[in-house]
């Protein structure tokens, strides 16, 4: 089987942009394991080149705001408290640096990358930058390699038991650029829920590499704060072994520019991966969900559910792919991306893709873009619900399928309440 070869010819503009950017990046001559991984990531960036608008993978989203030397926004963003009531273990990351004491409980070993990097050898070294590098196989993701090279801090999390309490990561920033890199390694049968909220920087880049061993569980819930002037690019690289489950949900209720990439490799039989997102865009808002799920084992299930509600010229993008390798029989793959456009100025562009090399699979995908249902709107208003509230109810109605992807009902309630509050605050 031949996958399309990567283009090796890079434009001069791309190479100039890249070398200028790499001039700002240290050369990492340290002998430690982390610096070696960073040096390799730096080399990947040099080889791939930074993204430019002409790249196929950046057809709908202009990468300039991420590659410009200086961030365009510089406002502070306070720590958010959406999950404050969730009885979680909390870690705070301020301007990209882990602060305060880290929780240590049985079965959960957490270190900061800054500390871990000083060791000669470390358990994270077979994962740190490794899943990211593997995630470059089918499509180049130079921003992720750049984040691996630049991030000086983040959490190295090793899980050896099923931890009932969620781990909550709260970001805050005084402004400027922040790069954060997390590694989560789950031993066979282990389990962890991570809650992420806040913003690491006015321009923030985060990588999260997640290795989910046999029968392990990983749940991820992310709520981005309502801050208009910020740019965010995130990457999740997940590797699933047999019987593993992975679930990730992101709520983005605002923000100028977001690119969330997720690369999920299902390598073990009977594993499940769900990735979902809901966003509310108003005005200067561009939100891009780019997902690549690879099925490379038998009897696995994957779901991608993305909902975008857009108004006042907001723009939503979805690029989602399911790749089913020849041996991945009995694959059950589902992908849906939908937008609700509240006016004619807003726009949704979707590129759903299925690439299937196995013959006994059930994969479906769909993408729709629609206006508010006038009959439903009238029905609600005829019961006395004011126009704006009725639109909000229909917004919640539209997003329900994505929110249902949150496995824990209490956490789902928190997200829903937060969404309702955000909606009523913006009327």
């Amino acid at each position, binding site marked *: 089987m031949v996958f399309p070869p990567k283009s090796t010819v890079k434009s001069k503009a791309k190479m100039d942009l890249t070398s200028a950017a790499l001039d700002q990046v240290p050369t990492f001559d340290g002998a430690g394991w982390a610096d070696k991984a960073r040096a390799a990531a730096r080399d990947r960036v040099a080889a791939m080149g930074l993204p430019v608008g002409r790249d196929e993978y950046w057809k709908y989203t202009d990468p300039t705001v991420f590659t410009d030397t200086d961030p365009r926004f510089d406002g502070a963003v306070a720590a958010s408290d959406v999950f404050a009531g969730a009885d979680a273990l909390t870690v705070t990351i301020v301007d990209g640096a882990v602060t305060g004491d880290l929780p240590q409980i049985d079965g959960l070993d957490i270190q900061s990358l800054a500390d871990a990097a000083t060791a000669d050898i470390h358990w994270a070294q077979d994962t740190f930058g490794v899943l990211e590098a593997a995630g470059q196989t089918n499509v180049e993701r130079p921003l992720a390699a750049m984040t691996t090279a630049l991030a000086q801090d983040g959490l190295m999390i090793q899980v050896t038991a099923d931890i009932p309490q969620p781990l909550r990561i709260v970001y805050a920033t005084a402004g400027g650029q922040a790069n954060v890199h997390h590694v989560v390694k789950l031993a066979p049968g282990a389990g962890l829920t991570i809650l992420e909220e806040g913003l690491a920087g006015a321009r923030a880049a985060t990588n999260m590499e997640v290795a989910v061993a046999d029968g392990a569980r990983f749940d991820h819930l992310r709520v981005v704060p309502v801050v208009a002037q910020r740019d965010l690019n995130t990457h999740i690289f997940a590797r699933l072994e047999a019987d593993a489950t992975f679930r990730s949900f992101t709520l983005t209720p605002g923000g100028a520019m977001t690119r969330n990439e997720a690369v999920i490799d299902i390598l073990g039989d009977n594993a499940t991966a769900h990735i979902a997102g809901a966003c509310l865009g108003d005005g200067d808002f561009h939100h891009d969900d780019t997902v690549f799920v690879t099925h490379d084992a038998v009897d696995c299930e994957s779901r991608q559910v993305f909902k975008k509600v857009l108004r006042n010229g907001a723009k939503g993008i979805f690029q989602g792919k399911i790749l089913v390798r020849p041996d991945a029989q009995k694959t059950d793959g589902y992908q849906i991306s939908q937008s609700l456009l509240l006016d004619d100025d807003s726009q949704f562009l979707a590129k759903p893709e299925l690439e299937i090399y196995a013959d006994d699979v059930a994969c479906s995908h769909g993408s729709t873009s629609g206006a508010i*249902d*006038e*009959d*439903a709107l*009238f*029905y*609600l*208003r*005829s*019961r*006395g*619900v*004011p*126009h704006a*509230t*009725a639109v909000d*109810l*229909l917004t*919640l*109605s*539209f*997003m*329900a*399928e994505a929110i249902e992807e949150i496995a824990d009902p209490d956490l789902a309630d928190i997200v829903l309440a937060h969404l309702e509050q955000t909606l009523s605050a913006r009327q």
Partner: protein
Amino acid sequence: MLNIKDLHVSLEEEDKEILKGLSLELEAGKVHAIMGPNGSGKSTLSYVLSGKDGYEVTGGSAQLDGQDLLDMDPEERAAAGLFLAFQYPVEIPGVGNMTFLRTAVNAQRKLRGEDEMSAGDFLKAVREKAKSLKIDADMLKRPVNVGFSGGEKKRNEILQMAMLGPKMCILDETDSGLDVDAMKLVAEGVNALRSPDRTFLVITHYQRLLDHIKPDVVHIMADGKIIKSGGPELALEVENNGYADILGEVA
């Protein structure tokens, strides 16, 4: 209560007149029925009164207790006491029936400048009213009308009516698609709400609903107008002879 004078309504999209000078006077505490052949404009009348888009009022007026309905937003008409039980209730996935009801009740109260209903009072009221309409807890939790049978949808309309307590209730073919038992439940629900300061306009095809909800006045509507009004016996006449005789007699 509701005064409709010489109402002329056309479709906004095409130049087609649907209501062609319709007048009705509904007194407080009375039940009026409208019967008429398919396409005579009965649903259009109910939609125009409750404020649906897509219709253009080219003449006439409609007043609810002296207030001009036609200038108001649909939600204002609801808060003023108008309720339409839909011929085809709309499904709203992802919004729980209970959430919907509470939002509607409190929105109306707010529009009228009243306090919100406490969660406890609301629950108690819903449970009691749902019980008499044989609506179980599961139906209350499910998304609005999603997966409901025809009869469940219509019972749900009556539950909303009971919770909102409007003074002017319009029922558009609430009996269509109901079996006899479901129709009885719906009729009981309506009868329980009858009061000296509440008026009903019951739109129906069939006499059988009117066996259970006894009308004071029956109107026959054809081609966008009321062509004949009378007592309950008019409904029986339609049941026995169809509309042909009446239409012929007027023509």
